[in-house]
């Protein structure tokens, strides 16, 4: 019997999983229209929503239905005609479910884009065909790269406004590749499109015969949903310990289940594992979800693990395979995006949350700040909101981490200000 058959997977005949992606661009690039077009052409928009935006379009004196109204959110935003935050949208093609993280493109909203990018496996970078590669294109690409999004789609939009001219598209591709190479971005696809007219978004349309590549939806349908496709090491931060201590039920009397989400890798019953920070080793006795026993479990599953030996384990500990263990770290360097209006104060102590672990931390030094428009490094004494910088931290308690470039789950952390409990920074360990 193959291992696959034992997974508690959904029995639906066609299910190509779930893909989370991000759209970068401003209203001017037609980003809202593109999202509206995706929702509209995949029949996600229902009649009452359409009627409501038709009404608004007419009120604003527009002839056609303004698809960008679909992504308009809050009253505060409508009044000011801006987007203040990340919004999440959903659509399905019947074979795959999608979550779009929609972040505004303005310069002052770097933090929103980093937030939206943190859960995405693919980013769509919008370029206005009339304007070509702009500073904001570079900024969006840099941020997508910083957050380590493995797949990029460069959507050259508004092709209708340049007469669907292939030369315009080719020039933008050449320009983009020139700087993407410098950044070291891997998988990039270029698609010419008109979100307004629906060319090359879901349908091919009538105007881009010279383009033989896939439509946007084709790429989305075939892109791997996982953030990382290479074989990753098993990392299991313990979230919660289940000890029913039910004296009436002998089976549950000594039950100790370690509950958590597998951040990466795969685990099989019988595997030799080590618990961090204690360093004690044992074997996996059982893997369960609510009484259902599994032979093995994989990345992104929430499971309960039982061990062969009684080891004292609590929330914040991490279970790894003994052959892939980790060293404790009490200091590290990271790329940090500052998220708070309150600047980073180097005299203060912050709280760092890494996996399910929390520890006090102090800033040992700021090596440089990145000018995200020129991508040049500059010295910095403190960090303001939207700043990206390389920062060295010292910790009160050790953490067990991998470089972010190898493992999102164990390479990322957030910085919390204990006085307000706000999340003030996001970090990616180098």
């Amino acid at each position: 019997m193959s291992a696959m058959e034992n997974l508690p997977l959904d029995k639906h005949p066609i299910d190509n999983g779930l893909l989370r992606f991000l759209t970068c661009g401003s209203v001017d690039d037609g980003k809202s229209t593109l999202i509206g077009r995706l929702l509209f052409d995949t029949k996600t928009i229902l009649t009452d929503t359409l009627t409501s935006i038709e009404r608004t379009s007419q009120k604003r004196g527009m002839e056609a239905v303004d698809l960008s109204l679909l992504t308009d959110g809050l009253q505060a935003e409508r009044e000011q005609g801006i987007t203040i935050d990340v919004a999440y949208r959903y659509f399905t093609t019947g074979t795959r479910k999608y979550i779009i993280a929609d972040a505004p493109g303005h310069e002052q909203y770097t933090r929103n884009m980093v937030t939206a990018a943190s859960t995405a496996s693919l980013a769509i970078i919008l370029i206005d065909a009339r304007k070509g590669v702009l500073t904001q294109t570079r900024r969006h690409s840099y941020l997508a790269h910083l957050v380590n999004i493995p797949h990029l789609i460069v959507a050259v939009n508004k092709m209708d406004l340049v007469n669907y001219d292939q030369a315009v598209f080719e020039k933008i591709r050449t320009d983009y590749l020139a700087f993407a190479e410098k950044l070291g971005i891997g998988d990039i696809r270029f698609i010419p499109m008109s979100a307004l007219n629906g060319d090359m978004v879901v349908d091919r349309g009538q105007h881009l015969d010279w383009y033989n590549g896939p439509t946007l939806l084709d790429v989305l349908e075939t892109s791997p949903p996982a953030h990382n496709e290479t074989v990753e090491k098993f990392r299991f931060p313990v979230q919660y310990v289940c000890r029913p201590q039910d004296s009436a039920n002998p089976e549950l009397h000594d039950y100790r289940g370690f509950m958590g989400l597998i951040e990466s890798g795969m685990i099989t019953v019988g595997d030799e594992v080590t618990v961090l920070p204690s360093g004690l080793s044992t074997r996996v006795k059982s893997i369960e979800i609510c009484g259902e026993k599994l032979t093995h479990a994989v990345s992104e599953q929430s499971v309960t693990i039982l061990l062969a030996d009684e080891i004292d384990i609590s929330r914040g500990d991490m279970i790894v395979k003994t052959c892939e263990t980790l060293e404790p770290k009490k200091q590290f360097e990271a790329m940090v995006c500052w998220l708070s209006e309150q600047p980073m104060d180097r005299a203060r102590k912050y709280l760092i949350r890494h996996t399910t672990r929390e520890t006090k931390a102090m800033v040992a030094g700021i090596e440089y700040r990145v000018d995200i428009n020129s991508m040049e490094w500059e010295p910095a004494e403190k960090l303001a909101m939207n700043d990206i910088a390389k920062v060295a931290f010292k910790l009160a308690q050790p953490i067990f981490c991998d470089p972010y470039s190898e493992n999102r789950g164990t390479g990322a952390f957030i910085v919390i200000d204990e006085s307000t409990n706000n999340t003030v920074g996001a970090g990616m360990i180098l």
Partner: protein
Amino acid sequence: MTVLTKQTLSHLDWLEAEAIHIMREVAGQCSNPALLFSGGKDSICMLRVAEKAFRPGKFPFPLLHVDTGHNYPEVIAFRDRRAAELGERLIVRSVEDSMKRGTVVLKHPGESRNKHQSVTLLEAIEEHGFDCCIGGARRDEEKARAKERIMSFRDEFGQWDPKNQRPELWNLYNARSHKGENIRAFPISNWTEMDVWQYIEREKLELPSIYFAHTRKVVIRQGAIVPVNVPLTSGELTNQPKAGETIVDLQVRFRTVGDISCTAPVESDADTVEKIVLETATTTITERGATRLDDQTSEASMEQRKKEGYF
């Protein structure tokens, strides 16, 4: 042995794993949480997720229902039975008690009690010292919800400030709060109505009967199907027909339950979960558009209510 490089989880498995993770984070980070359970379909899914998250242990939180009093008796009976079957503690606090205390004042006796649930909820939070309430809200329900965090911070007045939300990155949730403040946690934020029905189908979850097609006496009022002369748990008889309205027998089902006096059913023959999944896939109208008579009052009514402490 087969070497798996990458196993893709089905979308339901992924959503379920995420929801379990969020519930366990609440249990790990908060000292006194509660899970909101109304007997509605979303909170029924939440109970299943909680079982997957914590069994064979007990839930690390009680169930809490903020009862409008405007409920169908079968939903309340279902609520009580389900809590008993699970062996979990159920706390019920009612809008009617808040009305008796004078903290909820209706503009007129027929006013929707949905928005007044906020008051009763905040009173229950204070009474029990809850630092987190886990709810079954979904981002696809409404545009104000599309922008809310999974762990959503509320100040001492229970208010949501859309412009001042904590950034939420990766799966690193921040559920910290000071005394008096609290967190609303939404484990099924990323689920759509379709996902909920597919999950109910897959997990074979039991639902109150009003979710399935049945014959009901209704009138058509401003385009909406309004059930008439319905006896509520409060003892009232809701929605008397107005002069000139004709009562008809219609085959209907409810897509949501809330204050039932302002919840309209949809016309439907779907009497099984399977048929409802099919119908949901082909429907042309949104859940709230079809069924919530009080959401349409103002374009921003949900946003407004959330700022006031609503779920």
